[in-house]
Protein backbone atom coordinates (compact mmCIF):
# COMPACT_ATOMS: atom_id res chain seq x y z
CA UNK A 1 0.00 0.00 0.00
CA UNK A 2 2.83 2.40 0.92
CA UNK A 3 4.14 2.13 -2.63
CA UNK A 4 0.87 3.43 -4.04
CA UNK A 5 0.75 6.26 -1.53
CA UNK A 6 4.12 7.34 -2.81
CA UNK A 7 2.85 7.33 -6.37
CA UNK A 8 -0.21 9.28 -5.35
CA UNK A 9 1.90 11.88 -3.56
CA UNK A 10 4.12 12.18 -6.60
CA UNK A 11 1.11 12.67 -8.87
CA UNK A 12 -0.26 15.32 -6.53
CA UNK A 13 3.01 17.22 -6.42
CA UNK A 14 3.30 16.99 -10.19
CA UNK A 15 -0.19 18.36 -10.70
CA UNK A 16 0.59 21.30 -8.41
CA UNK A 17 3.74 22.04 -10.37
CA UNK A 18 1.83 21.88 -13.63
CA UNK A 19 -0.91 24.10 -12.27
CA UNK A 20 1.74 26.55 -11.13
CA UNK A 21 3.26 26.67 -14.59
CA UNK A 22 -0.13 27.43 -16.06
CA UNK A 23 -0.71 30.27 -13.67
CA UNK A 24 2.70 31.87 -14.14
CA UNK A 25 2.32 32.07 -17.90
CA UNK A 26 2.14 35.66 -19.03
CA UNK A 27 -1.29 36.79 -20.08
CA UNK A 28 -1.59 37.95 -23.66
CA UNK A 29 -1.88 41.63 -24.38
CA UNK A 30 -0.17 44.75 -23.08
CA UNK A 31 2.68 44.07 -20.69
CA UNK A 32 4.08 46.51 -18.20
CA UNK A 33 7.38 47.56 -19.78
CA UNK A 34 6.43 48.48 -23.33
CA UNK A 35 5.75 44.88 -24.25
CA UNK A 36 2.88 43.52 -26.22
CA UNK A 37 1.97 39.89 -26.81
CA UNK A 38 0.60 38.79 -30.14
CA UNK A 39 -0.77 35.31 -30.71
CA UNK A 40 -0.48 34.07 -34.28
CA UNK A 41 -2.46 30.99 -35.32
CA UNK A 42 -1.19 29.80 -38.68
CA UNK A 43 -1.22 26.78 -40.94
CA UNK A 44 2.02 24.84 -41.20
CA UNK A 45 3.19 25.59 -44.76
CA UNK A 46 4.50 29.17 -44.25
CA UNK A 47 6.21 28.43 -40.93
CA UNK A 48 9.68 29.09 -42.34
CA UNK A 49 8.51 32.31 -43.98
CA UNK A 50 7.06 33.56 -40.69
CA UNK A 51 10.31 32.72 -38.94
CA UNK A 52 11.83 35.53 -41.06
CA UNK A 53 8.87 37.90 -41.27
CA UNK A 54 8.24 38.00 -37.51
CA UNK A 55 11.68 39.44 -36.56
CA UNK A 56 11.35 42.06 -39.31
CA UNK A 57 7.99 43.12 -37.98
CA UNK A 58 9.29 43.19 -34.40
CA UNK A 59 12.09 45.56 -35.45
CA UNK A 60 9.65 47.66 -37.45
CA UNK A 61 7.19 47.95 -34.54
CA UNK A 62 9.91 48.70 -31.99
CA UNK A 63 11.16 51.55 -34.16
CA UNK A 64 7.66 52.89 -34.75
CA UNK A 65 6.25 52.70 -31.23
CA UNK A 66 9.06 51.72 -28.88
CA UNK A 67 7.11 48.59 -27.99
CA UNK A 68 8.54 45.07 -28.08
CA UNK A 69 6.21 42.55 -29.65
CA UNK A 70 6.43 39.10 -28.14
CA UNK A 71 5.02 36.52 -30.53
CA UNK A 72 3.33 33.32 -29.53
CA UNK A 73 3.04 31.23 -32.67
CA UNK A 74 0.96 28.14 -33.22
CA UNK A 75 1.16 26.06 -36.39
CA UNK A 76 -1.48 23.48 -37.22
CA UNK A 77 -3.33 22.19 -40.26
CA UNK A 78 -5.50 25.02 -41.57
CA UNK A 79 -8.83 23.40 -40.78
CA UNK A 80 -7.74 22.32 -37.31
CA UNK A 81 -6.35 25.79 -36.57
CA UNK A 82 -9.57 27.42 -37.71
CA UNK A 83 -11.68 25.14 -35.51
CA UNK A 84 -9.36 25.70 -32.56
CA UNK A 85 -9.92 29.47 -32.87
CA UNK A 86 -13.69 28.98 -33.04
CA UNK A 87 -13.54 26.76 -29.97
CA UNK A 88 -11.61 29.33 -27.95
CA UNK A 89 -7.95 29.39 -28.94
CA UNK A 90 -7.51 33.15 -28.59
CA UNK A 91 -5.34 33.96 -31.60
CA UNK A 92 -5.06 37.67 -32.38
CA UNK A 93 -4.19 36.98 -36.00
CA UNK A 94 -4.80 33.92 -38.15
CA UNK A 95 -2.99 33.01 -41.36
CA UNK A 96 -4.72 30.07 -43.04
CA UNK A 97 -4.61 28.13 -46.26
CA UNK A 98 -8.08 28.81 -47.59
CA UNK A 99 -10.83 31.35 -47.35
CA UNK A 100 -13.36 28.86 -45.99
CA UNK A 101 -11.30 28.49 -42.82
CA UNK A 102 -11.46 32.24 -42.17
CA UNK A 103 -15.15 32.31 -43.10
CA UNK A 104 -15.79 29.70 -40.41
CA UNK A 105 -14.29 32.04 -37.79
CA UNK A 106 -16.28 34.99 -39.16
CA UNK A 107 -19.48 32.93 -39.09
CA UNK A 108 -18.83 32.17 -35.43
CA UNK A 109 -18.99 35.93 -34.85
CA UNK A 110 -15.34 36.34 -33.89
CA UNK A 111 -14.40 38.43 -36.94
CA UNK A 112 -16.70 41.41 -37.30
CA UNK A 113 -14.84 43.61 -39.79
CA UNK A 114 -14.72 43.12 -43.56
CA UNK A 115 -11.49 41.16 -43.58
CA UNK A 116 -11.48 40.87 -47.36
CA UNK A 117 -11.17 44.66 -47.63
CA UNK A 118 -7.68 44.53 -46.08
CA UNK A 119 -4.59 44.38 -48.35
CA UNK A 120 -5.08 42.26 -51.45
CA UNK A 121 -8.60 40.98 -50.79
CA UNK A 122 -7.40 39.71 -47.44
CA UNK A 123 -4.93 37.36 -49.15
CA UNK A 124 -1.21 37.38 -48.35
CA UNK A 125 0.14 34.71 -50.68
CA UNK A 126 -0.91 32.42 -53.48
CA UNK A 127 0.18 29.14 -55.04
CA UNK A 128 -0.93 26.76 -57.79
CA UNK A 129 -1.60 23.04 -57.96
CA UNK A 130 1.27 21.25 -59.75
CA UNK A 131 2.86 17.79 -59.92
CA UNK A 132 6.00 16.44 -58.31
CA UNK A 133 7.69 13.83 -60.51
CA UNK A 134 10.77 11.65 -60.09
CA UNK A 135 14.17 12.97 -61.26
CA UNK A 136 14.35 13.10 -65.05
CA UNK A 137 10.55 12.63 -65.26
CA UNK A 138 10.86 8.94 -66.28
CA UNK A 139 7.16 8.61 -67.14
CA UNK A 140 7.23 11.77 -69.26
CA UNK A 141 4.38 13.41 -67.35
CA UNK A 142 3.54 16.68 -69.10
CA UNK A 143 -0.03 17.57 -68.19
CA UNK A 144 -3.24 16.47 -66.52
CA UNK A 145 -4.11 13.92 -69.22
CA UNK A 146 -1.05 11.82 -68.32
CA UNK A 147 -2.41 11.26 -64.82
CA UNK A 148 -5.18 9.04 -66.15
CA UNK A 149 -2.77 6.65 -67.92
CA UNK A 150 -3.07 3.15 -66.44
CA UNK A 151 -0.32 2.24 -64.00
CA UNK A 152 0.73 5.75 -62.92
CA UNK A 153 0.88 5.66 -59.12
CA UNK A 154 -0.44 8.92 -57.72
CA UNK A 155 -0.39 10.47 -54.24
CA UNK A 156 -2.92 13.11 -53.21
CA UNK A 157 -4.27 13.77 -49.73
CA UNK A 158 -7.81 12.92 -48.62
CA UNK A 159 -10.27 15.79 -49.29
CA UNK A 160 -12.19 14.92 -46.14
CA UNK A 161 -9.18 15.70 -43.96
CA UNK A 162 -7.17 18.09 -46.08
CA UNK A 163 -7.95 21.45 -47.60
CA UNK A 164 -5.03 20.84 -49.95
CA UNK A 165 -6.72 17.81 -51.44
CA UNK A 166 -9.83 19.86 -52.16
CA UNK A 167 -7.68 22.26 -54.19
CA UNK A 168 -6.23 19.29 -56.09
CA UNK A 169 -9.62 17.85 -56.97
CA UNK A 170 -11.03 21.22 -58.03
CA UNK A 171 -7.94 21.99 -60.08
CA UNK A 172 -8.11 18.70 -61.94
CA UNK A 173 -11.84 18.89 -62.56
CA UNK A 174 -11.69 22.58 -63.49
CA UNK A 175 -8.86 22.03 -65.98
CA UNK A 176 -10.94 19.30 -67.62
CA UNK A 177 -14.13 21.34 -67.68
CA UNK A 178 -12.31 24.33 -69.16
CA UNK A 179 -11.04 22.21 -72.02
CA UNK A 180 -7.38 22.00 -70.99
CA UNK A 181 -7.15 18.24 -70.70
CA UNK A 182 -6.37 16.44 -73.94
CA UNK A 183 -9.17 14.05 -74.86
CA UNK A 184 -11.74 15.56 -72.50
CA UNK A 185 -14.27 17.86 -74.21
CA UNK A 186 -14.74 21.30 -72.66
CA UNK A 187 -17.92 22.26 -70.80
CA UNK A 188 -18.88 18.62 -70.32
CA UNK A 189 -19.38 17.87 -66.61
CA UNK A 190 -19.93 14.17 -67.27
CA UNK A 191 -16.62 13.85 -69.14
CA UNK A 192 -14.81 15.85 -66.46
CA UNK A 193 -16.16 13.54 -63.77
CA UNK A 194 -15.05 10.50 -65.72
CA UNK A 195 -11.60 12.00 -66.01
CA UNK A 196 -11.57 12.54 -62.24
CA UNK A 197 -12.61 8.90 -61.78
CA UNK A 198 -9.81 7.69 -64.06
CA UNK A 199 -7.21 9.66 -62.08
CA UNK A 200 -8.61 8.53 -58.72
CA UNK A 201 -8.24 4.95 -59.91
CA UNK A 202 -4.48 5.57 -59.99
CA UNK A 203 -4.31 7.04 -56.50
CA UNK A 204 -2.49 4.63 -54.20
CA UNK A 205 -2.38 6.62 -50.97
CA UNK A 206 -4.60 9.38 -49.60
CA UNK A 207 -2.75 10.92 -46.69
CA UNK A 208 -4.22 12.99 -43.93
CA UNK A 209 -2.73 16.23 -45.19
CA UNK A 210 -0.64 17.83 -47.94
CA UNK A 211 2.53 17.68 -45.86
CA UNK A 212 2.15 13.97 -45.01
CA UNK A 213 1.52 13.27 -48.68
CA UNK A 214 4.72 14.94 -49.87
CA UNK A 215 6.67 13.29 -47.04
CA UNK A 216 5.48 9.91 -48.26
CA UNK A 217 6.52 10.87 -51.78
CA UNK A 218 9.96 11.86 -50.48
CA UNK A 219 10.28 8.39 -48.97
CA UNK A 220 9.93 6.97 -52.47
CA UNK A 221 6.25 6.05 -52.60
CA UNK A 222 4.50 6.49 -55.96
CA UNK A 223 5.38 8.01 -59.33
CA UNK A 224 3.74 11.37 -58.92
CA UNK A 225 2.28 13.61 -56.22
CA UNK A 226 -0.40 16.21 -56.88
CA UNK A 227 0.52 19.04 -54.55
CA UNK A 228 1.11 22.77 -54.13
CA UNK A 229 3.92 24.46 -55.95
CA UNK A 230 5.30 25.75 -52.64
CA UNK A 231 5.54 22.24 -51.15
CA UNK A 232 7.79 21.20 -54.03
CA UNK A 233 9.93 24.35 -53.97
CA UNK A 234 10.49 24.04 -50.22
CA UNK A 235 11.21 20.32 -50.61
CA UNK A 236 13.76 21.05 -53.32
CA UNK A 237 15.39 23.71 -51.12
CA UNK A 238 15.69 21.03 -48.46
CA UNK A 239 17.62 18.83 -50.88
CA UNK A 240 14.95 16.55 -52.34
CA UNK A 241 15.55 15.66 -55.97
CA UNK A 242 12.01 15.49 -57.33
CA UNK A 243 11.08 17.78 -60.20
CA UNK A 244 8.16 20.10 -60.77
CA UNK A 245 5.73 19.85 -63.69
CA UNK A 246 3.34 22.75 -64.36
CA UNK A 247 0.03 21.76 -65.94
CA UNK A 248 -1.34 24.08 -68.63
CA UNK A 249 -4.32 24.87 -66.44
CA UNK A 250 -4.48 25.08 -62.67
CA UNK A 251 -6.40 26.64 -59.84
CA UNK A 252 -5.02 29.65 -57.99
CA UNK A 253 -4.73 28.88 -54.30
CA UNK A 254 -5.18 31.99 -52.20
CA UNK A 255 -4.04 32.10 -48.58
CA UNK A 256 -5.80 34.62 -46.32
CA UNK A 257 -4.74 36.32 -43.09
CA UNK A 258 -7.07 38.20 -40.76
CA UNK A 259 -7.35 39.92 -37.41
CA UNK A 260 -9.73 38.22 -34.98
CA UNK A 261 -11.79 41.11 -33.60
CA UNK A 262 -13.16 39.33 -30.55
CA UNK A 263 -9.74 38.33 -29.27
CA UNK A 264 -7.78 41.51 -30.09
CA UNK A 265 -10.41 43.53 -28.26
CA UNK A 266 -10.19 41.21 -25.29
CA UNK A 267 -6.38 41.38 -25.24
CA UNK A 268 -6.14 45.06 -26.19
CA UNK A 269 -3.92 44.20 -29.15
CA UNK A 270 -5.93 45.55 -32.05
CA UNK A 271 -3.37 48.13 -33.11
CA UNK A 272 -0.40 45.78 -33.30
CA UNK A 273 -2.46 42.95 -34.82
CA UNK A 274 -3.76 45.16 -37.63
CA UNK A 275 -0.25 46.49 -38.21
CA UNK A 276 1.04 42.92 -38.49
CA UNK A 277 -1.59 41.91 -41.05
CA UNK A 278 -0.83 45.08 -43.04
CA UNK A 279 2.86 44.27 -42.80
CA UNK A 280 2.26 40.91 -44.49
CA UNK A 281 1.31 42.76 -47.68
CA UNK A 282 4.45 44.95 -47.75
CA UNK A 283 7.12 44.26 -50.35
CA UNK A 284 9.51 43.22 -47.56
CA UNK A 285 7.20 40.43 -46.37
CA UNK A 286 6.08 39.49 -49.85
CA UNK A 287 9.67 38.90 -50.93
CA UNK A 288 10.13 36.54 -48.01
CA UNK A 289 7.02 34.57 -48.96
CA UNK A 290 8.41 34.35 -52.50
CA UNK A 291 11.71 32.99 -51.16
CA UNK A 292 9.74 30.21 -49.44
CA UNK A 293 7.88 28.90 -52.43
CA UNK A 294 4.76 31.07 -52.32
CA UNK A 295 3.62 33.30 -55.17
CA UNK A 296 3.38 36.95 -54.23
CA UNK A 297 0.13 38.92 -54.21
CA UNK A 298 2.12 42.11 -54.83
CA UNK A 299 2.26 42.70 -58.62
CA UNK A 300 5.81 44.10 -58.52
CA UNK A 301 7.21 41.25 -56.46
CA UNK A 302 5.32 38.76 -58.64
CA UNK A 303 6.85 40.29 -61.77
CA UNK A 304 10.33 40.22 -60.25
CA UNK A 305 10.02 36.54 -59.32
CA UNK A 306 8.35 35.37 -62.55
CA UNK A 307 11.38 33.23 -63.43
CA UNK A 308 10.72 30.98 -60.50
CA UNK A 309 6.95 31.26 -60.74
CA UNK A 310 6.09 30.99 -64.45
CA UNK A 311 2.61 32.15 -65.43
CA UNK A 312 0.39 29.29 -66.55
CA UNK A 313 -1.59 29.16 -69.78
CA UNK A 314 -4.88 29.11 -67.92
CA UNK A 315 -5.46 29.96 -64.29
CA UNK A 316 -8.79 30.09 -62.49
CA UNK A 317 -9.96 30.66 -58.93
CA UNK A 318 -12.54 28.89 -56.81
CA UNK A 319 -15.01 31.49 -58.08
CA UNK A 320 -15.17 29.36 -61.24
CA UNK A 321 -17.13 26.89 -59.10
CA UNK A 322 -19.20 29.64 -57.49
CA UNK A 323 -17.01 30.14 -54.40
CA UNK A 324 -16.08 27.84 -51.53
CA UNK A 325 -19.50 27.12 -50.01
CA UNK A 326 -20.89 26.13 -53.40
CA UNK A 327 -17.82 24.07 -54.34
CA UNK A 328 -17.84 22.23 -51.01
CA UNK A 329 -21.50 21.41 -51.48
CA UNK A 330 -21.16 20.32 -55.11
CA UNK A 331 -17.99 18.29 -54.75
CA UNK A 332 -17.50 17.09 -51.19
CA UNK A 333 -20.97 16.56 -49.76
CA UNK A 334 -22.52 13.12 -49.40
CA UNK A 335 -23.51 12.78 -53.07
CA UNK A 336 -20.95 15.25 -54.30
CA UNK A 337 -18.93 14.82 -57.47
CA UNK A 338 -15.86 13.63 -55.59
CA UNK A 339 -17.71 10.96 -53.65
CA UNK A 340 -19.41 9.70 -56.81
CA UNK A 341 -16.07 9.50 -58.58
CA UNK A 342 -14.21 7.70 -55.78
CA UNK A 343 -17.05 5.21 -55.44
CA UNK A 344 -16.93 4.53 -59.16
CA UNK A 345 -13.14 4.37 -59.16
CA UNK A 346 -13.16 1.68 -56.49
CA UNK A 347 -15.75 -0.31 -58.39
CA UNK A 348 -18.49 -0.02 -55.77
Amino acid at each position, binding site marked *: *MAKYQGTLLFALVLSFILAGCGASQPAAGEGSQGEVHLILGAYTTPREAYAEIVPLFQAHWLEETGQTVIFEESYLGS*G*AQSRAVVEGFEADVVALSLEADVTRIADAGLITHDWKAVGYNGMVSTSVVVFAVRPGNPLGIADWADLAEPGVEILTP*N*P*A*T*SGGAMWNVLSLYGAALRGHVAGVPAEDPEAAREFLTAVLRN*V*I*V*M*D*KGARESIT*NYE*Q*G*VGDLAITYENEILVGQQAGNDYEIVFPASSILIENPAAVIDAYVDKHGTREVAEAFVDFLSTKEAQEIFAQHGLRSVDPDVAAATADQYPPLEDIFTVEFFGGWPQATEDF*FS*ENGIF*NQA*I*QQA*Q*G*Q
Partner: protein
Amino acid sequence: MKAILSRRKQNGRSPELGLRAASFIFILLMVVIPMIVIIQDAFREGFDEFWHQVSQPVAAHAILLTLWTSALMTLINAIMGLATAFVLVRYDFPGKGILNAIIDLPLAIPTLVTGVMLVILYGPQQTLGAFLDQQLGFQVIFAPPGIVLALLFITFPFVVRTIQPVLLELDIQQERAAATLGARGWPIFRRIIFPALALPTLSGSLLSFARAVGEFGAVVIVAGNIPFRSQTAAVYVLGAVESENRLAASAVSVVLIAISLLVILITNYLIKRRQIS
Protein backbone atom coordinates in the same frame (compact mmCIF):
# COMPACT_ATOMS: atom_id res chain seq x y z
CA MET B 1 -5.06 -7.72 -0.79
CA LYS B 2 -7.69 -10.21 0.37
CA ALA B 3 -6.38 -9.96 3.90
CA ILE B 4 -6.54 -6.20 3.85
CA LEU B 5 -10.09 -6.19 2.57
CA SER B 6 -11.40 -8.66 5.11
CA ARG B 7 -9.70 -6.79 7.92
CA ARG B 8 -11.36 -3.61 6.76
CA LYS B 9 -14.71 -5.32 6.77
CA GLN B 10 -14.30 -6.19 10.44
CA ASN B 11 -13.35 -2.62 11.28
CA GLY B 12 -16.69 -1.31 10.08
CA ARG B 13 -18.52 -0.46 6.90
CA SER B 14 -17.61 3.16 6.24
CA PRO B 15 -14.22 2.83 4.51
CA GLU B 16 -15.66 0.20 2.23
CA LEU B 17 -18.61 2.41 1.41
CA GLY B 18 -16.27 5.30 0.66
CA LEU B 19 -14.21 3.12 -1.63
CA ARG B 20 -17.28 1.99 -3.48
CA ALA B 21 -18.61 5.52 -3.85
CA ALA B 22 -15.23 6.79 -5.03
CA SER B 23 -14.81 4.14 -7.70
CA PHE B 24 -18.41 4.53 -8.79
CA ILE B 25 -18.06 8.29 -9.20
CA PHE B 26 -14.74 7.82 -10.98
CA ILE B 27 -16.20 5.42 -13.54
CA LEU B 28 -19.17 7.71 -14.00
CA LEU B 29 -17.01 10.76 -14.67
CA MET B 30 -14.31 9.12 -16.72
CA VAL B 31 -16.21 6.56 -18.78
CA VAL B 32 -19.97 6.62 -18.55
CA ILE B 33 -20.63 10.33 -19.05
CA PRO B 34 -18.33 10.74 -22.09
CA MET B 35 -19.96 7.66 -23.65
CA ILE B 36 -23.42 9.07 -23.03
CA VAL B 37 -22.36 12.33 -24.67
CA ILE B 38 -21.29 10.51 -27.83
CA ILE B 39 -24.41 8.37 -27.94
CA GLN B 40 -26.66 11.35 -27.34
CA ASP B 41 -24.82 13.25 -30.08
CA ALA B 42 -25.20 10.40 -32.55
CA PHE B 43 -28.96 10.22 -32.03
CA ARG B 44 -29.62 13.94 -31.72
CA GLU B 45 -31.43 13.99 -35.06
CA GLY B 46 -33.26 10.75 -34.53
CA PHE B 47 -32.65 7.13 -35.40
CA ASP B 48 -33.32 7.53 -39.14
CA GLU B 49 -30.62 10.13 -39.50
CA PHE B 50 -28.25 7.97 -37.41
CA TRP B 51 -28.94 4.99 -39.64
CA HIS B 52 -28.53 7.12 -42.75
CA GLN B 53 -25.05 8.17 -41.60
CA VAL B 54 -23.98 4.65 -40.70
CA SER B 55 -25.36 2.95 -43.80
CA GLN B 56 -23.73 5.33 -46.26
CA PRO B 57 -21.62 3.13 -48.51
CA VAL B 58 -18.35 4.84 -47.62
CA ALA B 59 -19.05 4.64 -43.86
CA ALA B 60 -20.35 1.07 -43.98
CA HIS B 61 -17.32 -0.01 -45.96
CA ALA B 62 -14.98 1.63 -43.44
CA ILE B 63 -16.74 -0.12 -40.54
CA LEU B 64 -16.56 -3.51 -42.28
CA LEU B 65 -12.87 -3.07 -43.08
CA THR B 66 -12.19 -2.19 -39.44
CA LEU B 67 -14.08 -5.22 -38.20
CA TRP B 68 -12.51 -7.82 -40.45
CA THR B 69 -8.95 -6.56 -40.04
CA SER B 70 -9.44 -6.44 -36.26
CA ALA B 71 -10.97 -9.92 -36.21
CA LEU B 72 -8.15 -11.41 -38.29
CA MET B 73 -5.59 -9.73 -36.06
CA THR B 74 -7.39 -11.08 -32.96
CA LEU B 75 -7.25 -14.63 -34.28
CA ILE B 76 -3.53 -14.44 -35.04
CA ASN B 77 -2.93 -12.72 -31.73
CA ALA B 78 -4.79 -15.40 -29.77
CA ILE B 79 -2.72 -18.23 -31.27
CA MET B 80 0.66 -16.53 -31.22
CA GLY B 81 0.04 -14.86 -27.85
CA LEU B 82 -0.79 -18.22 -26.29
CA ALA B 83 2.33 -19.79 -27.79
CA THR B 84 4.54 -16.89 -26.69
CA ALA B 85 3.22 -16.93 -23.14
CA PHE B 86 3.73 -20.69 -22.94
CA VAL B 87 7.33 -20.43 -24.15
CA LEU B 88 8.11 -17.56 -21.80
CA VAL B 89 6.73 -19.34 -18.73
CA ARG B 90 7.70 -22.96 -19.34
CA TYR B 91 11.09 -22.77 -20.99
CA ASP B 92 14.39 -21.34 -19.91
CA PHE B 93 16.73 -19.89 -22.45
CA PRO B 94 19.37 -17.18 -22.60
CA GLY B 95 17.91 -13.71 -23.06
CA LYS B 96 14.52 -14.71 -21.68
CA GLY B 97 14.45 -11.75 -19.30
CA ILE B 98 15.08 -9.29 -22.11
CA LEU B 99 12.51 -10.92 -24.37
CA ASN B 100 9.98 -10.76 -21.58
CA ALA B 101 10.63 -7.06 -21.14
CA ILE B 102 10.43 -6.34 -24.87
CA ILE B 103 6.86 -7.63 -25.06
CA ASP B 104 5.51 -4.56 -23.27
CA LEU B 105 7.33 -2.09 -25.50
CA PRO B 106 4.54 -1.72 -28.08
CA LEU B 107 2.44 -0.12 -25.33
CA ALA B 108 5.07 2.57 -24.79
CA ILE B 109 5.69 3.46 -28.43
CA PRO B 110 3.46 6.17 -29.87
CA THR B 111 1.32 4.34 -32.41
CA LEU B 112 2.20 6.92 -35.05
CA VAL B 113 5.80 5.78 -34.71
CA THR B 114 4.64 2.20 -35.13
CA GLY B 115 3.10 3.17 -38.45
CA VAL B 116 6.21 4.95 -39.67
CA MET B 117 8.34 2.00 -38.61
CA LEU B 118 6.17 -0.46 -40.54
CA VAL B 119 6.35 1.72 -43.66
CA ILE B 120 10.14 1.78 -43.35
CA LEU B 121 10.19 -1.99 -43.04
CA TYR B 122 7.48 -3.11 -45.46
CA GLY B 123 6.93 -0.05 -47.66
CA PRO B 124 6.90 -0.60 -51.44
CA GLN B 125 10.27 1.13 -51.76
CA GLN B 126 12.01 -0.95 -49.09
CA THR B 127 13.88 -4.17 -49.72
CA LEU B 128 11.47 -6.39 -47.84
CA GLY B 129 8.36 -4.61 -49.09
CA ALA B 130 9.62 -4.54 -52.69
CA PHE B 131 10.44 -8.25 -52.52
CA LEU B 132 6.98 -9.16 -51.27
CA ASP B 133 5.34 -6.87 -53.78
CA GLN B 134 7.30 -7.83 -56.89
CA GLN B 135 8.13 -11.48 -56.26
CA LEU B 136 4.97 -12.58 -54.51
CA GLY B 137 2.54 -9.91 -55.65
CA PHE B 138 1.64 -9.25 -52.04
CA GLN B 139 1.27 -5.61 -51.13
CA VAL B 140 1.56 -5.00 -47.41
CA ILE B 141 1.71 -1.26 -46.85
CA PHE B 142 -1.13 0.92 -48.19
CA ALA B 143 -3.33 -2.17 -48.22
CA PRO B 144 -5.34 -4.12 -45.59
CA PRO B 145 -2.41 -6.43 -44.63
CA GLY B 146 -0.58 -3.36 -43.37
CA ILE B 147 -3.54 -2.58 -41.11
CA VAL B 148 -3.47 -6.11 -39.66
CA LEU B 149 0.29 -5.87 -39.08
CA ALA B 150 -0.02 -2.54 -37.30
CA LEU B 151 -2.84 -3.82 -35.10
CA LEU B 152 -0.87 -6.97 -34.25
CA PHE B 153 2.11 -4.96 -33.14
CA ILE B 154 0.08 -2.59 -31.01
CA THR B 155 -2.05 -5.20 -29.23
CA PHE B 156 0.48 -8.01 -28.91
CA PRO B 157 1.07 -7.56 -25.14
CA PHE B 158 -2.62 -7.92 -24.29
CA VAL B 159 -2.93 -11.66 -24.90
CA VAL B 160 0.54 -12.59 -23.60
CA ARG B 161 0.11 -10.59 -20.43
CA THR B 162 -3.32 -12.00 -19.57
CA ILE B 163 -2.17 -15.60 -20.05
CA GLN B 164 1.19 -15.39 -18.28
CA PRO B 165 -0.01 -15.06 -14.66
CA VAL B 166 -2.55 -17.86 -15.09
CA LEU B 167 0.06 -20.13 -16.57
CA LEU B 168 2.45 -19.30 -13.72
CA GLU B 169 -0.18 -20.33 -11.18
CA LEU B 170 -1.07 -23.50 -13.05
CA ASP B 171 0.05 -26.51 -11.05
CA ILE B 172 2.83 -28.16 -12.99
CA GLN B 173 2.26 -31.35 -10.92
CA GLN B 174 -0.83 -32.11 -12.99
CA GLU B 175 1.22 -32.11 -16.15
CA ARG B 176 3.89 -34.25 -14.53
CA ALA B 177 1.24 -36.69 -13.34
CA ALA B 178 -0.23 -36.89 -16.82
CA ALA B 179 3.24 -37.47 -18.20
CA THR B 180 3.82 -40.28 -15.73
CA LEU B 181 0.60 -41.82 -16.92
CA GLY B 182 2.03 -41.87 -20.41
CA ALA B 183 0.50 -38.73 -21.96
CA ARG B 184 2.70 -36.82 -24.35
CA GLY B 185 3.04 -33.17 -25.42
CA TRP B 186 -0.11 -32.48 -27.39
CA PRO B 187 -2.66 -34.37 -25.24
CA ILE B 188 -1.23 -32.74 -22.13
CA PHE B 189 -1.62 -29.35 -23.71
CA ARG B 190 -5.11 -30.07 -24.97
CA ARG B 191 -6.49 -31.80 -21.86
CA ILE B 192 -4.74 -29.96 -19.04
CA ILE B 193 -3.14 -26.73 -20.07
CA PHE B 194 -5.55 -25.40 -22.65
CA PRO B 195 -8.74 -25.71 -20.55
CA ALA B 196 -7.09 -23.55 -17.91
CA LEU B 197 -5.89 -21.02 -20.45
CA ALA B 198 -8.99 -20.79 -22.63
CA LEU B 199 -10.57 -18.03 -20.59
CA PRO B 200 -7.51 -15.78 -20.25
CA THR B 201 -6.83 -16.26 -23.96
CA LEU B 202 -10.38 -15.28 -24.74
CA SER B 203 -10.39 -12.21 -22.53
CA GLY B 204 -6.94 -11.11 -23.71
CA SER B 205 -8.02 -11.48 -27.34
CA LEU B 206 -11.15 -9.54 -26.61
CA LEU B 207 -9.17 -6.74 -25.09
CA SER B 208 -6.96 -6.60 -28.16
CA PHE B 209 -10.02 -6.57 -30.44
CA ALA B 210 -11.60 -3.69 -28.56
CA ARG B 211 -8.33 -1.79 -28.63
CA ALA B 212 -7.82 -2.45 -32.35
CA VAL B 213 -11.25 -1.27 -33.45
CA GLY B 214 -10.48 2.27 -32.34
CA GLU B 215 -6.84 2.43 -33.42
CA PHE B 216 -5.98 5.52 -35.42
CA GLY B 217 -2.35 6.68 -35.23
CA ALA B 218 -0.62 3.71 -36.81
CA VAL B 219 -3.43 2.85 -39.20
CA VAL B 220 -3.60 6.29 -40.78
CA ILE B 221 0.07 5.93 -41.79
CA VAL B 222 0.05 2.38 -43.15
CA ALA B 223 -3.45 1.96 -44.59
CA GLY B 224 -3.42 4.26 -47.60
CA ASN B 225 -6.82 5.66 -46.51
CA ILE B 226 -8.57 5.32 -49.83
CA PRO B 227 -12.36 5.25 -49.37
CA PHE B 228 -13.86 1.85 -50.33
CA ARG B 229 -10.42 0.24 -50.34
CA SER B 230 -8.27 1.01 -47.33
CA GLN B 231 -10.03 3.59 -45.18
CA THR B 232 -10.86 2.35 -41.68
CA ALA B 233 -13.64 3.61 -39.44
CA ALA B 234 -11.31 5.66 -37.22
CA VAL B 235 -9.84 7.43 -40.25
CA TYR B 236 -13.34 7.98 -41.64
CA VAL B 237 -14.31 9.55 -38.31
CA LEU B 238 -11.38 11.95 -38.55
CA GLY B 239 -12.51 12.90 -42.06
CA ALA B 240 -16.05 13.48 -40.82
CA VAL B 241 -14.79 15.70 -38.00
CA GLU B 242 -12.53 17.65 -40.37
CA SER B 243 -15.35 18.28 -42.80
CA GLU B 244 -17.78 19.49 -40.12
CA ASN B 245 -19.88 16.35 -40.18
CA ARG B 246 -19.94 15.61 -36.46
CA LEU B 247 -23.11 13.57 -36.74
CA ALA B 248 -21.42 11.04 -39.02
CA ALA B 249 -18.41 10.96 -36.69
CA SER B 250 -20.55 10.27 -33.62
CA ALA B 251 -22.77 7.78 -35.41
CA VAL B 252 -19.87 5.65 -36.65
CA SER B 253 -18.22 5.89 -33.22
CA VAL B 254 -21.39 4.61 -31.59
CA VAL B 255 -21.42 1.62 -33.93
CA LEU B 256 -17.84 0.79 -32.92
CA ILE B 257 -18.69 1.18 -29.23
CA ALA B 258 -21.79 -1.00 -29.61
CA ILE B 259 -19.87 -3.77 -31.35
CA SER B 260 -17.13 -3.76 -28.72
CA LEU B 261 -19.74 -3.83 -25.96
CA LEU B 262 -21.58 -6.69 -27.61
CA VAL B 263 -18.42 -8.74 -27.94
CA ILE B 264 -17.56 -8.10 -24.30
CA LEU B 265 -21.04 -9.13 -23.15
CA ILE B 266 -20.98 -12.32 -25.20
CA THR B 267 -17.61 -13.28 -23.76
CA ASN B 268 -18.75 -12.56 -20.22
CA TYR B 269 -21.77 -14.77 -20.80
CA LEU B 270 -19.59 -17.59 -22.12
CA ILE B 271 -17.25 -17.27 -19.16
CA LYS B 272 -20.11 -17.35 -16.68
CA ARG B 273 -21.72 -20.37 -18.30
CA ARG B 274 -18.42 -22.18 -18.22
CA GLN B 275 -17.85 -21.39 -14.58
CA ILE B 276 -21.29 -22.73 -13.66
CA SER B 277 -20.83 -25.96 -15.57
